């Protein structure tokens, strides 16, 4: 059981690293929008919307990973 938990923690860590990469490579360039006269609140709104979507997707993936790793144990 403990091995499965280590695996789940490791999967979460990998998801954090990948999620960070997506945020930096996709959200980062949105700052450039402000330099071409897009109002800051539009730029921030786009960033916020994207980040929230990413969190929702992240939780969804995590739920799937959890059900897959603990499919035997979660049969309470």
């Amino acid at each position, binding site marked *: 059981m403990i091995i499965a938990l280590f695996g789940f923690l490791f999967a979460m860590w990998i998801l954090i690293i990948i999620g960070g*990469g997506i945020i930096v*490579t996709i959200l980062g360039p949105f700052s450039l929008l402000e330099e071409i006269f897009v109002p800051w609140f539009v730029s921030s709104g786009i960033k916020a919307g994207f980040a929230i979507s990413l969190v929702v997707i992240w939780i969804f993936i995590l739920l799937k990973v959890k059900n897959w790793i603990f499919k035997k144990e979660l049969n309470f």
Partner: protein
Amino acid sequence: MTELIIPAIVCSIVAFFTVYLTTPLLIKILIKKNYTVKDVNKKGDVMIARPGGPAIILGILFSEIILYRFLQIPEILSIMIVTSLSFVIGYVDDRKVLGGWFKPIALALAATPIIFLGTYDSNLAFPLFGEVNIPILYLAIIVFMIPITGNTINSIDVLNGVASGFMTIASFSLSISLFIIGNLDLMVVSLPLGFVSLAFYKFHKLPSKIFPGDSGALTLGGMYGAIAIVGHVEIIAAVALLPAIVNSFLFLSSMKKIVEHRQVKGKPVEHTDDHKLKATSDKTAPVTLVRLILARTPMSEKQVETQIFKLAIFSGTLAIVTAILMRISL
């Protein structure tokens, strides 16, 4: 760097010994005033003093005030205010039973001094990929961080010694990470959290003489969250806290709403005849980290505690690896 050695040693000693010396006194006062609760994992009516929060906050405030005399940086004030507010919120919850939403909202408000004092950096740093500037979104992260860290530490406080032992491992991992990324001032500022947790663990470990209560758990969690924001190590702090986050995640995904532990009807864990802990088959009970650890076989409280500490050391190691990866850019 050498000028930080004396402040680091002094604040660590003050933090450790304040808690180490005041906790026995606090236990006597709490028992005298009949502020005790039943330890549900023990045979018979074993009553334990609660809460240990006042000793913990004393250790943190004494050491951080001394540190402020040495370093004179606003980040220390920020951390002290947030930690004190978290303690007050926890203490109110120790004395009165409050609704499930009270703590998250109150802790979100407790985070606002970080914003007003301007002791944050809106660039969110990720390992390998660098930083992203999110000025507005970062305010939301500040407001969410303290309730998340406070409540995750509170939710893992289910067995003797787990919350304080887990916090010792997580906070020293965070201090090492701060050293690796070169934020030496905040590394020193974070040391009292580890030493306070370690000193409290002496009395909280199996068999407990005192429980931290909400005031203790929220103080530790609130300070941890404040260091994460002010020290600009949000991702590293989250990684070190992963087992506690998994516990909250499992709980919320099974209950599907924010609910106080005391409001949950189903029991996730029960006792065997030889008083070992065993996962129940109750479908209405929440899934928790302890229930998952016990899913295959019953264990003693000590064995479960050891498994949780192994997970904490693993995630602490991942946090340190994350700090090393912060220095590498693809």
